[in-house]
């Protein structure tokens, strides 16, 4: 039997009926239509499906859709303000931090969480924060640069 859930998605209150055995990642992509979380390894290794639940990063391929009842979910769309890219997204663009782009939404979610916790992370902090996100194109250096760039600037002055 389907279960009724109500949740906040990118700041917007929503309700839905989901099967108990439905995975959050597929619910977001196929039923809600938010395609930024990607389906990669499907077992929590690659990080391409990373989203925020209550501002904490999680791998949405290992979460059931019913579990988000009464919780708040944020995808990369929710990091944008009034249709404009966030400073972090812009920094990824500026530093050429992705080629195929498959890992980018997960990478940005993970680094967003890091920058919320630490305004000036060290290179080690950054490596640690994105260690659960695999990228097969860039060799990670441009990604680390993008996050570093931002951590040096005073982000609030841009927002």
């Amino acid at each position, binding site marked *: *039997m389907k*279960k009724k859930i109500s949740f906040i998605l990118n700041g917007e209150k929503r309700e839905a009926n989901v*099967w*108990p*055995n*439905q*995975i*959050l*990642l*597929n*619910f977001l992509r*196929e*039923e809600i239509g938010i395609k930024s979380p990607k389906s990669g390894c*499907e*077992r*929590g*290794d690659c*990080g391409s499906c*990373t989203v925020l639940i209550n501002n*904490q*990063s*999680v*791998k949405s391929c*290992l*979460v*059931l*859709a*019913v*579990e988000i*009842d009464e919780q708040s979910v944020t995808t990369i769309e929710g990091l944008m303000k009034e249709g404009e890219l966030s400073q972090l997204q812009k920094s990824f663009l500026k530093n050429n931090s992705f080629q195929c782009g498959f890992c980018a939404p997960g990478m940005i979610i*993970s680094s967003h*969480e*890091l920058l919320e916790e630490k305004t000036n992370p060290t290179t080690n902090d950054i*490596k*640690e*924060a994105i*260690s*659960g*996100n695999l990228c097969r194109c860039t060799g990670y250096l441009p990604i680390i640069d993008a996050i570093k760039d931002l951590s040096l600037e005073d982000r609030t002055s841009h927002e």
Partner: protein
Amino acid sequence: MSNRSFWSTIKGIGIGMIQEFDYFKCFSIDEVIEHMAVFNNSKILAGGTDLVASLKENHVSAEVLLDIKGIKKLKGIKLTKKMLEIGSLVTFNDLIESKIIKENFPVLMEMAKTVASKAIRNRATMAGNICSAVPCMDSAPVLAAYDAVVVVTNLTGEREIPIAKWFKGPKKNALLKNELVTAIRINNFKQNHAGCFLKLGRYQGEDLAQVNLCVLALSQKEFRVVFGSVGPVPIRAKEIEKLLKGNDLRIDLIDSCCLMVNETIFPITDIRATKEYRLHMAKVMLKRALYAAVNRLEGHGPVYGEYHL
């Protein structure tokens, strides 16, 4: 038929349906116990990072999942004069951020930092880690070194299972039918002590352990040594502890300890490492962990939680 609807038709893949089960969110321990008695094959869902992956790959089956994340009582980390109590909903990230843990049991924090990656640690619980009981779990060597006790609730009340009797084999634990782990308790050490947790992976970052190890150095030159990932269950090296007791760490003593590792652990060859490599590295790690623990006890060892293998 478009490609997508074709895949959606078979097994509901498109909309993410895995094997069928029902789901209940519970808000009290009693509610969980009642539900467990009603269903034949229920599984407890906390973080779900192991359970959901196993359900997806059909390694486990369940009739119903009982979500315990709504039970506030299982969430806290409490320290009294007698003991440290870690609720079964405490995640690895909670352990890293807890002031109580950092100040009193930093080796638990050091261990938690090596577990998977942030997005997993935000959700995965330590109780879930020992319930899954896969041989490469990271929390077990530390818990075994501290002689932790697993607190379990069932229909008749509460019972305590010492960690030494908890692990029954790979993916097997001492939990009986209709029992729920509510907390993990560790005796509060009155004496000054230090520890060291080391984990060997193929690379830094998210990987499972090839060997992991926890050493505790207590006052009066007493030691505790537990190996993980090199046998079906965590291995407390009592013989090595005996040899170390009362002695200073001299090179010849450490060499004899390393020789004893041969008879202590039973590593196997698998996708992550060969048994020869595991055996060799277990000795290297024992040596480094002993030095680190003793140096920390004296106040000048490596900082807790920073990679130093």
